[in-house]
């Protein structure tokens, strides 16, 4: 009993912090979505579900929802695939210093602020003098591409940038997971004649199950909330709103249109979307394996 009271007492500050800075804003945002809300007004009118009703007929909201789902679906899938492969390749390197070197190299983009990296990549994607178009022209003779000014190219361009900026973190997590797998399993597999690919699919992947489940969940949640690169690389939402995602639409609605009630309603939808996707993902990836 005494121990329990002590534990509660010690955990109290962090609970207060979580309540004030995480739980209350979520509840507040949810509440605001039922009002025609301008924070500078003395009285804001309760309008019930009117903001949510508006969402159904809002073409830009529907487009940004589709863009968000496409972005998350493609980027997370590619991210997990690439980082698993790279982590495996790095773990196969014979010398520890080599392995450390490559982990650092891949992690470095994660350290740079996303907004600064986005601005730099904006220059790389420039139609006339951008490095990417120059390389494509000199190496493959491809005519300059208007990466950020063509509706069909904006999302792929942002996906490529996001992969570059984000794979380092997952590589480190997967590498740590792989380092934790006892070498006995690989030795036994080698004795049985298993090659590199079979070892990866039958030993590494299953025993990395919990790590994969955690990484996928975290990556999905973080990608739903990405904003910086869309604000920088998709000018005003991009051509025909091709780069308009829910986070950018929330920001625009709240701070440019100043309709904070409607912005909160969009945020509630985003919250529900993330929760649904994460729950489904956790159910599908229930891991019973241990070793």
């Amino acid at each position, binding site marked *: 009993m005494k121990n329990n009271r002590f534990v509660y007492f*010690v955990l109290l500050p962090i609970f*207060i912090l979580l309540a004030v800075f995480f739980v209350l804003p979520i509840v507040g945002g949810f509440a605001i979505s039922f009002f025609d809300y301008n924070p500078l*007004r003395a009285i804001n009118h309760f309008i019930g579900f009117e903001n949510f009703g508006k969402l159904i007929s809002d073409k830009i909201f529907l487009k940004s929802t589709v863009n968000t789902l496409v972005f998350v679906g493609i980027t997370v899938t590619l991210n997990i695939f690439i980082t698993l492969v790279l982590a495996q390749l790095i773990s196969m390197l014979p010398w520890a210093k080599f392995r450390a070197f490559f982990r650092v190299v891949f992690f470095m983009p994660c350290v740079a602020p996303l907004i600064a990296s986005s601005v730099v990549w904006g220059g790389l994607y420039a139609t*006339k003098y951008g490095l990417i178009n120059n390389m494509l022209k000199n190496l493959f003779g491809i005519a300059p591409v208007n990466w*950020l*000014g063509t509706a069909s190219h904006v999302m792929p361009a942002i996906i490529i940038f996001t992969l570059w900026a984000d794979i380092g973190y997952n590589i480190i997590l997967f590498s740590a997971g792989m380092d934790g797998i006892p070498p006995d399993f690989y030795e036994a597999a080698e004795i049985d004649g298993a090659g590199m690919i079979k070892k990866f699919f039958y030993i590494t992947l299953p025993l990395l199950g919990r790590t994969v489940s955690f990484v996928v969940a975290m990556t999905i949640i973080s990608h739903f909330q990405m904003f910086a690169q869309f604000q920088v690389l998709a000018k005003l939402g991009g051509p025909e709103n091709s780069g308009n995602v829910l986070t950018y639409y929330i920001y625009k609605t709240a*701070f*440019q249109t*100043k309709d904070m009630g409607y912005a909160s309603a969009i945020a509630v939808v985003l919250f529900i979307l993330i929760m649904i996707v994460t729950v489904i993902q956790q159910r599908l990836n229930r891991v019973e394996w241990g070793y």
Partner: protein
Amino acid sequence: MKKFTSCALAVILSAAMLTGCGAPAANTGSSPASADKSGTGVTTITLWSHIDVNWNPAQDKMIADFEAANPDIKVVRESFPYDEFESKTQTSLLSKEGGADVYQLWGGWAIDYSKTGAFAPVPDAYMAKVKEDSYEPVLGSFGYNGKYYGVPLEYNIEYGGLLVNTPKFKELGIQYPTTWDEMINIAKKNSSSNGAVYNLRGLDFVGWDTLPYTWLSMILSSGGSYMDGDKFNFNNPTGVATMQKLVDYVTVDKMTNLDGLTNASETEPYQKLFTSAEELMVPRGPWVVPEGINVDGLKYGQDFEYVSMPFYGPKKLFAAETGWGLAVNASSKKQEAAWKFVEFWTDPNRVLQYDIACGMVPASKTAANNPELIKAMPYMAPLVKVLDGGRFIGYFNTDKLKENVKATFIDIVNNKTPVAEALGKLDSTMNAAK
């Protein structure tokens, strides 16, 4: 020992958190809610503005002159990056304890803030003087319910002037255009592109501000209109004809493309004119001229010039929204000092010097017609002649208008939507948003 250390840490963390969440510390330098506590009889007020390499030194000079004339009032300027300035202003006005006493305020924002009581109404006697000496568009957005909540510093004019690439004109051996047809012919003849890459954009009017203002001026100068009472009505014969012209300039004549609206990796057309040989003519406000000189180190008259932009139709009319002005925080406990500062700043002789330093067109008729303006900024000459042709764009959020005009134009150009159909949708969207 472990338990004691854990308890001590928990107490320290709680104390630190509660202190941070508590009442703000008294800050006589920047809080409008705190009275002067220095005991020296000096009142300190705060001015918030956005960071600008030309405007900030001009503001500091104004502050220094004001403090010299009013030794009992001190002004502290705090400036923020432009992209954050509006949200910082909005957030600060929420907290009646924080924020500034005087805000540099964009007219378009005033439409939202005036209704909320966040800003103090301008004293009637002072406002009467301002109204008598101001052009029509400069006051529009600051007014609400018979009162005004801001005082204009400038006449925001995004139509009337044309940035031209002087070396390119010399190379091509052509004169600057004096009529609309001349301008279009020069642009058509000299534009050149290769797929997605433009070698030279003849007339780059595709931009967040330039597209809507060019179009609205085309409508007004043709004798048309875009409002029917307080409802939008773009889908009329003049609106359709003028929009079709602009679309043809992009799709048929290939004077430019949509990059100015859609491509984040491209700089703005006027910046491209300053830094590359890709632009021949760019319609833009006069504020870009000091940027070319002071930021890009260009020589006016040699590297670029600013000439009259011809009117599309017979009437020299254009739409203008209310530009930058000054407003006083309604929560400020130092409003008397704040209004004194604002009135000092907006005196026609003083504001003229400020506008010259910032490359702004004065809101005050007295200042705009002062020969000193043209002497200091010869490029203002074509604009000063047309200022009376400015019409207040309308009491609505112009960002919504610009957003929807942009979407409409892209839709017509990319998807070949018929202009009348697109303008019908534009009318519905804008009227629903009102």
